[in-house]
Structure formats: structure tokens, C-alpha cells
């Protein structure tokens, strides 16, 4: 048998420090094993082109997808969390906050902004899961409340993009009351007859589902997102039952009547704006060529 490769020289060895690694971030491997170049992934709205897997993205990417020319004015950027309860579990909350800020370069788990989408003003609040699991504490509640106030003031529709494990335990009941606070603001927005669109992305669970995520004039989602009140593990442990197939996926939630539609991320901007035009009985805007 002939060898495919023949080592001509003996003793070729590369020291560990001289070995070359593939640079990080060049490739993305989807859960189904498909490999995509990062650049191609970004061009395809962060959806794996082969299997349509919607990769989890944050506020930076959603703003880029939804605001025209990625131009927007960020609101209340400087709000940061306090540690009013001096909460300590295996780590101090204050240390967790520091670590999260350093790791994510974000100030908290939501960013809010106003800008133009298909030529018209839109207020967006978008959660970042990378910041302590997208958990909702006082800052998240306050920023969303102020974003809603802004939408009311500017008479601009409000889009909430949820991506959260739920309330932030380290702020205990203060975080629980953010459910009431944001809901009160949404009631005011409804009173002003300004459209509210809730986009539930992977994952939207716990306190977010028990407040703003489920309160849209329309609730929409992306394919394959996890949406639920109690997490699947909690449901399984409590009931001792096997979970049905596709339990708590966006398709399942739509089938049970809690989502208006599921959209591919490529069509998100168009569909959100189409709804806004239709519900306000305005001429339907044409989409410019998207780069």
C-alpha cells in the first residue's frame, strides 16, 4: 500500500507556541453541524444559509438589521444597575455586574433607541442575553419605561425585542415589580393608540413572558425560538411528564394561539413596517434595496 503522504524529513515538530490556530470568529458552526463563514452569516441576517438556523444575536445586530443605514439615537445609555439589596450568593451581585460589563461591553441587559426604519421613526428596545442572561432588573424596567414614554411623545410605534431568562433574582422583588411598571407604561401607550409590536426571540421566558413580551398588539417571533413562562426543565421536574415534541418553540406557541406570526429574520424589517402601515391605515411603504 502506498502512503498518501510521505514524511521526507525526520523529526519535524512544531512547538506549541508556534502552532497556528484558526482565528476565532471566522467560522460559525450551527447546532446542526453546518459551518458558515462569519462574514456570510452577517450578510444573511445572522441566519445559517443552509439550514435557516437563526443564530442568537444582540441589540447591535438587531439595530443594524432594523434601523435604516444603522443610524439611530441611543436612549438612556448611561443607566446602570445598583446593588440595593447587597445581594450575595456564590458571588456578589456587584462583582457579577462588573464582570458582565467587562465581558459584554454593555451597561445592562437592554438597549433602547430611536431611529428611522423604512423612512419612519420607530422606537426599539432590544434585550441582550449576554448580559446576565438578559435578566430584567430595575435598569431594564426603567429603560423600557422611558422608551415607551419616548414612543408616546414622538407618536412613534414601539418595538420590543425580548431575549431573556426572566427577572433578575439578585434584585429580588424590585425586579418583580418591573413587570408591573412596564405593563403600566404599556397601558398608557395603548391608551394613546400607538402600535406596540412584541418580538419574542430565543429565549423569552419567565418574567418577560409574564409582562411585556406577551402584551403586544401583535406578538411575533423567529423560527425555533424558545418561548414560555416556566422553563422546560422546571415543567419536567414539577410534572414528572415527558414534554411533547417541539414544546415551547415559537411554532408550538403560535399553534396554541399566542403569536400572530413567525418571520424569517430576512423579512423582519419589512413585515414589522407593513403591520405598522396597515394597522394605522397608512399607505404601505416600499422597501428599498437592502444591502
Amino acid at each position: 500500500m502506498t502512503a498518501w503522504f510521505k514524511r521526507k524529513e525526520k523529526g519535524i515538530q512544531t512547538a506549541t507556541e508556534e502552532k497556528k490556530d484558526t482565528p476565532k470568529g471566522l467560522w460559525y458552526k450551527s447546532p446542526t453541524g453546518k459551518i458558515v463563514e462569519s462574514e456570510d452569516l452577517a450578510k444573511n441576517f445572522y441566519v445559517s444559509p443552509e439550514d435557516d438556523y437563526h443564530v442568537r444575536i444582540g441589540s447591535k445586530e438587531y439595530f443594524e438589521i432594523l434601523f435604516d443605514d444603522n443610524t439611530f439615537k441611543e436612549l438612556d445609555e448611561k443607566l446602570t444597575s445598583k446593588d440595593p439589596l447587597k445581594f450575595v450568593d456564590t458571588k456578589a451581585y456587584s462583582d457579577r455586574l462588573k464582570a458582565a460589563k467587562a465581558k459584554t461591553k454593555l451597561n445592562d441587559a437592554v438597549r433602547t433607541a430611536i431611529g428611522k426604519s423604512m423612512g419612519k421613526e420607530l422606537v426599539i428596545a432590544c434585550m441582550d442575553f449576554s448580559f446576565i442572561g438578559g435578566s430584567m432588573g430595575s435598569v431594564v424596567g426603567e429603560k423600557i419605561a422611558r422608551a415607551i414614554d419616548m414612543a408616546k411623545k414622538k407618536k412613534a410605534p414601539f418595538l420590543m425585542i425580548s431575549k431573556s431568562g426572566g427577572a433578575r433574582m439578585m434584585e429580588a422583588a424590585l425586579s418583580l415589580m418591573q413587570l408591573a411598571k412596564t405593563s403600566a407604561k404599556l397601558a398608557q401607550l395603548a391608551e394613546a393608540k400607538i402600535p406596540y409590536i412584541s418580538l419574542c426571540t430565543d429565549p423569552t421566558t419567565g418574567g418577560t413572558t409574564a409582562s411585556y413580551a406577551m402584551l403586544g398588539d401583535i406578538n411575533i417571533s423567529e423560527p425555533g425560538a424558545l418561548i414560555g413562562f416556566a422553563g422546560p426543565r422546571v415543567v419536567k421536574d414539577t410534572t414528572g411528564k415527558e414534554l411533547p415534541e417541539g414544546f415551547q418553540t415559537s411554532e408550538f406557541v403560535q399553534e396554541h394561539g399566542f403569536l400572530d406570526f413567525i418571520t424569517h429574520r430576512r423579512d423582519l424589517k419589512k413585515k414589522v413596517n407593513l403591520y405598522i402601515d396597515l394597522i394605522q391605515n397608512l399607505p404601505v411603504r416600499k422597501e428599498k434595496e437592502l444591502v
Partner: protein
Amino acid sequence: MEYLEFELPIKELEEQLQKCQIIGKESEVDVTETCQQIEKKLAETKKDIYKNLTAWQRVQLSRHPNRPYTMDYINAICGDTFLELHGDRTVGDDKAMIGGLGKIGDQSYMFIGQQKGYNTKTRQYRNFGMANPEGYRKALRLMKSAEKFGIPVVCLIDTPGAYPGIEAEERGQGEAIARNILEMTRLKVPIIVVIIGEGASGGALGIGVGDKVLMLENTWYSVISPESCSSILWRSWEYKEQAAEALKLTAPDMKKLKLIDEIVREPLGGAHTNRKKTFETVKNKIASHYEVLQKLSPKELVNQRMDKYAAMGVFNG
């Protein structure tokens, strides 16, 4: 009467006192002085234990098997004027969430609350006070009905949480709670909320938005139970005491954080040690708060309520 672990010194003294009294009755020996001594010691021990309760001990008291539940309050407060109303008009009648109309004096109120059971059978029947979406929708139906006729709403909270079941998820547990919270922020009649036992997270807040939120002295209210908090953050069930402290879930803590409006004193040893007195206190609190709230116009009422919740939260900037 059942005793919690930290109450055992009380149990011992009460048994001693009983024995002493029996001896006094059955024999010629004069035990008056001994009895008095035990009584004195008992009073001191009680004071010592109940005035220095830890957060975890309060959680235990809030779940005391002899503690009165929602229906006990309603029956005692309204007597035979209470008329229970059933069903959400869509799926069914949730036994973990009860409601209906009743009087305090001349005034009608819509009472709503989670209901726990008294023994294995009724506990299952009531699903341990964990409501399904139907329960929250039934509560909302009753609130809207009260609003239509200008009847104030009283919510009595006692739940270990909304039920995390498969069917509950299918029927939109999150949406049901969210809808209630939103509608309660803008309901045009006074809402008085009393936490009478456990106030666990969204399951509690789903009927917990109010103009006045009161907590009985030995109850807890937070975003998660200390046990679940321990299992998530410490990855073990063993840290429930620390979790209870960290969560600041007692009535005094909640008052300090301005998340509730008032603490309602319980008889020494807890609500169950003197039920009648507890019911009377709660009844008077509801009536007196309504007395003040009824003077506000619906608009003032809703604005005040929304402003109260909008001010909750602590942050920099």
C-alpha cells in the same frame, strides 16, 4: 396545633404547663406557683422566639399547616353574604383561584384569591394554591365585572407560584399573568391587596397590582421562592436560609424598599394562634383603606396607581 422546629421550646413548656395543671386538679398539691412560673417562662420564650424571627422562619410560618387560607378570611369577613362565582368562560373553573362577592358592612367587595387545601385530598383538589391560566383569567373576568358596577376589588394572595405545567404553558400562563398585570394597572375601581401567606413571583403579582398592598407580618413576597433561588444560584437546595435572607422577602424588608404600603400585625406566634383576631384586623384594614380610596375619582385612582409602580426600581443615572 402543630409546631415548627424552632417552636419546639414553646411546645415543651406548653406540655409542662398542661401536666402541671392536671396535677393541680387531680391531687391536693398546690401547684399555683409552679404553674405561674411556667406561664411566665412560656410568655418570655414566645416573645424571645417570635420577636427575633429570621427570614427563613417567617417563610416557614407563612406555610404553617394551621394558618388560615383565603376562604377562611372571606367566610369570617363576609359571613353568609359571600357568593362564590366560578369559571373563566373559556376553559374551566380553576380550583386554585377562588372569587366572589361579599359585604363588609354596607359595602360590596369582589374578593379574589388563591386557595390552598387542608389535607392531602383537598391540597390536590386546590393544586396546592398554584393557579393555571384559567385561574388568572377567571380573576380578570371578576375584576372587569366589578369595574363595570363600581365595586372595589380585594385580592388575598397565598401561592407558592403559578403552576408550571404542560397544559398551563399550552394555554399561555405567561400571557394570562401579563394580561392581568396590565389590566390591573388601569382598573377603574380601588384594588386592595393583602398577602396572607406566600407571595411567589408572577403567580402572586398576577392578582397583586393594587392601590394599597398590605403584607401580614409573617408572610413573604419575592421574585422566587428561597428554595428555587438556592437551587439556581447555589446549585443546591441546601442554601434556602441564606437565599431567604438575601432576597429581602419579609414584610419589613418589603416596606423598607417601598414595594408594599403597610405591614399588618399578627397575633404573637402567627395568624393561626388567634384566627378571630387576625380576621377582624384584616377586615378593618380593608374597610379603612376603602374609606380613603373611594374618595378618589377613577382617573386620580389610576394615575396614582400607575405613578406608584412607575417609581419602583433602584438604579444609577
